[in-house]
């Protein structure tokens, strides 16, 4: 059963900062709503919760939560989160990033943290544009997309961050749009509970900078009508965009649509677990050697 908004707002959000600074219809507010509900469902201790963010509209989110928050440099949110989690593994670290943050300047940090399998949850607010600076083309902007810096349509191929994370070996990857509220809450909950790096990509609307549709509500309909569920096994050999080499096949009529769903869910030992093991083993071996030499 869903809890009433005013109760949750009272408990988890900073009232003096509300209403938020986000534009009317901005999906970041919705992601705040979903995250609050996910945290509440898991009954997490707010004193052990750290929100980390980089630069961008989405990175303003930690300010609104009644928990620890770190607002870091551009693209380095995951690097800071790694440091926090490694030094104090009792903390629950949630990273909010935008697509400009994670796919452009911070892509290397993202891939390296997946490789290390640090136990953090990364929530990516993917609005397919640089919203804060006025709607320039970003690495996730689809091909043929008109932005401020590509007025005659974008000619670059776009990144699909979820498939990138899957290829790098993330333990949990889920991709939804902000119109899929219940699924997004479930994905965030699962991601927080998961040991290892969980990546949740939420395709969101930017009604101010990205003028694809005149009204915010048109984005909602676009997300619901144009999204298709991810099929891990599909026999038709045709791929759209970038996942040609990842054995991800989609049928022809699905080309150009938003692919949503749970993309991977596997189990792997996380960094902290292996580090603890290594520490014990190395100390034992060290003392053994010491004894032998004595």
């Amino acid at each position, binding site marked *: 059963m*869903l809890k*009433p*908004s*005013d109760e*949750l*707002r009272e408990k988890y*959000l900073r009232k003096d900062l*509300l*209403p*938020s600074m*986000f*534009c*009317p*219809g*901005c*999906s*970041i*507010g*919705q992601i*705040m*709503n*979903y995250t*609050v*509900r996910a945290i509440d469902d898991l009954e997490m201790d707010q004193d052990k919760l750290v929100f980390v963010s980089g630069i961008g509209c989405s990175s303003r989110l930690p300010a609104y939560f009644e928990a620890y928050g770190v607002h870091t440099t551009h693209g380095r949110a995951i690097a800071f989160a790694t440091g926090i989690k490694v030094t104090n593994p009792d903390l629950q670290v949630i990273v909010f990033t935008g697509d400009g943050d994670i796919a452009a300047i911070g892509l290397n940090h993202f891939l390296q943290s997946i490789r290390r399998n640090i136990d953090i949850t990364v929530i990516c607010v993917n609005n397919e544009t640089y919203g804060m600076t006025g709607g320039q083309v970003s690495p996730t902007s689809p091909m043929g997309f008109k932005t401020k810096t590509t007025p005659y349509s974008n000619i670059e191929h776009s990144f699909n961050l979820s498939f990138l994370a899957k290829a790098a070996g993330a333990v949990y990857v889920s991709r939804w749009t902000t*119109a899929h*509220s*219940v699924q997004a*809450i479930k994905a965030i909950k699962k991601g927080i509970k998961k040991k290892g790096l969980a990546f949740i990509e939420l395709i969101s609307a930017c*009604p101010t900078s990205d003028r694809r549709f005149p*009204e*915010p*509500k048109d984005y*909602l*309909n676009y997300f619901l009508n144009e999204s298709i569920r991810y099929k891990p096994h599909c026999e038709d050999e045709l791929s759209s965009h970038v996942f040609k080499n990842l054995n991800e096949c989609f049928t022809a009529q699905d080309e150009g649509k938003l692919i949503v769903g749970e993309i991977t869910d596997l189990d792997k030992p996380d960094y902290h677990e292996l580090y603890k093991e290594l520490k014990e083993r190395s100390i034992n071996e060290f003392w053994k050697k010491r004894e032998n030499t004595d």
Partner: protein
Amino acid sequence: MDIKIKEEYCKGCEYCIEVCPQEIFQKSKRYNEKGYNVPELNNSKSCTGCKKCELICPEMAITISKEEENKKK
């Protein structure tokens, strides 16, 4: 069902109008203190309590609760 809209938080994005299956929310001519067009309620008795609007609201401004619960308090 008891529908409460915290009007000072509303930004007039009209997501609630779009998402409600019973078409309870409606465009109004009223504005809040920040100048946003606030939705108004129409036939709120037909609310089934699906809470779609509560989930979709970016400002967490809509609260839906059962009327019985409020009476108990």
